[in-house]
């Protein structure tokens, strides 16, 4: 058997430089060629539409009765209620994208090919965020339309033209992409799947419970700044009085995600594999 030494015609010998664009392409290939990842994303999209439709159907049979309930009734949020489950699938998959490489040893192959390392993290972040958006923007609009058509049978529906509605529907997809990056950041920082998934669930759920133990004057002040309530604010049309403004809240959530990714990048750059 002979060893082919001629390089492929598409890349000349001198043009085998590693660039960020090439690494993004490589990470995109990794994402789309793992059947389990593709299925997780499809499941997330199905959850967004399915749970929204289910909950809309429930609310039609149990419409708001008293004036307070009517005032706070948010038909957009009802049709988007699937994101609370989809965020788990997307966040866990984000973590797995990198912890899976540490678990299988593929990370060494990745870092041998890209010795600067950080392009791998950014490539995963960009590829995954785009994949989540490509899937969740349509899913979110589909969930909204399906949900509203169900709610319309009880005259409870709203339209995209109402103030804040289009922002909330788009915001749901943006929030999910940010949760995906949060999972990726935790996975890169902690390296182990169990630790990363535990930390992800902890970050999304535990702070609200802990703040509940504080006196209400403090908890009301703090609540809006907690990761999940801050991020989810962008998906609500009727704002919770203790929540931050939609884009402010999303900005705070993105800040948390950015801090985690920065810590992960620092650790990835400086630690042995």
């Amino acid at each position, binding site marked *: 058997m002979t060893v082919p030494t*001629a390089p*492929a015609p598409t890349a000349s010998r001198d043009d085998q430089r590693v660039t960020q664009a090439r690494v993004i392409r490589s990470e995109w290939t990794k994402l789309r060629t793992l059947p389990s990842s593709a299925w997780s994303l499809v499941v997330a999209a199905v959850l967004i539409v399915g749970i929204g439709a289910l909950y809309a159907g429930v609310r039609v049979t149990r419409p708001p009765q008293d004036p307070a309930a009517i005032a706070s009734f948010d038909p957009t949020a009802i049709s988007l209620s699937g994101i609370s489950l989809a965020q788990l699938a997307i966040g866990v998959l984000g973590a797995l994208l990198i912890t899976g490489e540490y678990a299988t040893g593929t990370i060494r192959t990745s870092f041998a090919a890209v*010795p600067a390392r950080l392009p791998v993290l950014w490539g995963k972040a960009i590829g995954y965020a785009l994949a989540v958006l490509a899937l969740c923007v349509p899913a979110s609009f589909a969930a909204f339309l399906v949900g509203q058509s169900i709610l319309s049978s009880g005259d409870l529906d709203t339209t995209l033209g109402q103030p804040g509605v289009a922002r909330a529907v788009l915001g749901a997809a943006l929030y999910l992409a940010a949760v995906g990056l949060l999972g990726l950041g935790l996975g890169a920082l902690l390296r182990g799947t169990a630790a990363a998934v535990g930390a992800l669930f902890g970050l999304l759920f535990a702070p609200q419970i802990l703040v509940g133990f504080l006196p209400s004057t403090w908890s009301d002040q703090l609540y809006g700044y907690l990761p999940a309530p801050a991020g989810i604010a962008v998906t609500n049309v009727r704002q919770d009085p203790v929540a931050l403004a939609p884009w402010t809240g999303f900005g705070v959530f993105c800040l948390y995600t950015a801090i985690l990714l920065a810590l992960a990048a620092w650790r990835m750059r400086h630690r042995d594999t």
Partner: protein
Amino acid sequence: MIEARGLTKRYGAKLAVDDLSFTVRPGVVTGFLGPNGAGKSTTMRMILGLDAPTRGSVTVNGKPYRQHPAPLREVGALLDARSVHPGRSAHHHLLAIAQTCGIGRSRVDEVIDAVGLREVARRRAGGFSLGMGQRLGIAVALLGDPHTVILDEPVNGLDTEGIRWMRSLLRDLAAEGRTVFVSSHLMSEMALTAEHLIVIGRGRLIADTGMREFIAGAARDDVRVRSTDQDALAALLRPRAAEVSPDRDGALTVSGLTTDQVGRAAAAAGITLLELTARQASLEEAFIDMTSDAVEFRAPTTAPAKG
């Protein structure tokens, strides 16, 4: 060309690699030998910039690996055959690596053919045997048509045909002027492929020498002799030889004398020789001889002898 200078790696209290300096030259297969835990894999990871040295440095073609803009063009490496996600196909695994530096699909197909994985390239790598995983790892190493090839235990899990293939592959790569650096614990295999040896034990350099010199330098050159009167022969040789000891089958092993000297001495004393053989140490014996002080995990010597 790989150049290590004072390379040192400490993990907590343990010195995994200790002030290691060596040069791996292009054009020959250089074997990297050492007992388990000697620091071979750690050294290879440091060459690839995966682990940072505690002290010292190592360069590939004049630069630390991390500073090469086209790393796969410089070094192709096989570190662990299992470094592939079990859910991904061999083809996609290679494609993702190729894309990091703009290597095209046709080259991916080329290396798949070169390692003989065409039939299974589209199947999940999780179902691969150890030998197939090893071939996939070799395909990864060849992908960038690199100047330097670093392979950690490449014949692990290969069948006889695979081992023969690996042997000729390594020789071909070296003949093309590449730097070929291969670790193995299979001494006999190394003796057949490597021309130069770097031997380490407990992270320290034990030898950096040609294969022939290494074997010749081992203290185990001796003579095996059988005669009609072994006791008389032993008594005759003992004052002259460095050591005379009986073998299990009744023959004598004599060190410090040549076959000529033993033959003449026996003839002068009127002892009839039945067998007289010069024995050169195998690489394995030479290796055990050189590293016996440096073996980290040794089995207890009181283990029952096999019948």
